[in-house]
């Protein structure tokens, strides 16, 4: 795997992880609002 491919994969993993965290937080806030 080239360096560029490695950095791209790590960046994608960071983005998907961040998205998952914020999505769960969003759901949790929705539950608290009910």
């Amino acid at each position, binding site marked *: 795997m080239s360096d560029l491919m490695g*950095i*791209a994969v790590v960046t*994608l993993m960071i*983005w*998907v992880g961040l*998205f998952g965290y914020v*999505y769960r*937080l*969003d759901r949790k806030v929705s539950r608290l609002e009910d």
Partner: protein
Amino acid sequence: MRVADISKIGLLVWLAAVIVAAFFYVHAAEGFIGESSRIVFFHVPMAWIAVLAFLVSCVTSVMYLRRRDPRDDIRASVSAGLGLLFAFLATTTGAVFAKIMWGAYWNWDPRQTSITILLLIYAAYLALRGAVDDPERRASLSAVYAILAFVTVPFLVFVVPRIYWSLHPDTIINTRGTNEFDSRYTQVLLASVLGFTGLYVWLYTIGCRIEAIRQRRRQEVLDV
């Protein structure tokens, strides 16, 4: 599936596509060491979001002073916090670029210096909010501070780095008023700015909702 969920999944896919395009759709730009030019697709949108967030904080602060609606105070504080976060991320990605291009993470370049001042100004905003207990007094003081703080933003972000000689590349917004990026760079950069703006709107909405719940619970405790 609700429309809100579809738009969130859309944001996930959109920014994932931007990441793939940033690494594989565009070529490394000439005049930059290695692949360092690709950082522009993340660094510039982060800086853009910081300015947008500080603008929203200023506008909602003006609205608070006019209407005295506590929700405007919440909006201003959440947006200032997000602006600080994105300004910090822009500084960090800029430092990585500086290390590759100029050999050191920090060079006291006019742009690095001006963003440091900006970070300190908005960190002081959050410190001010933490130092005042009375909610109405806190809201009024921080609204006035946020308006004054935003006055410095155009100077620190757009004017100062162009007055002094800078190491910072000026291919996007430059003193000649031209865009010297090739078309693929422009396409990916605009897509990234759009995606980051969507991310900011989502985080801002969640932040406002959390703060509203926190205030409601605080009020319930006081009422008991």
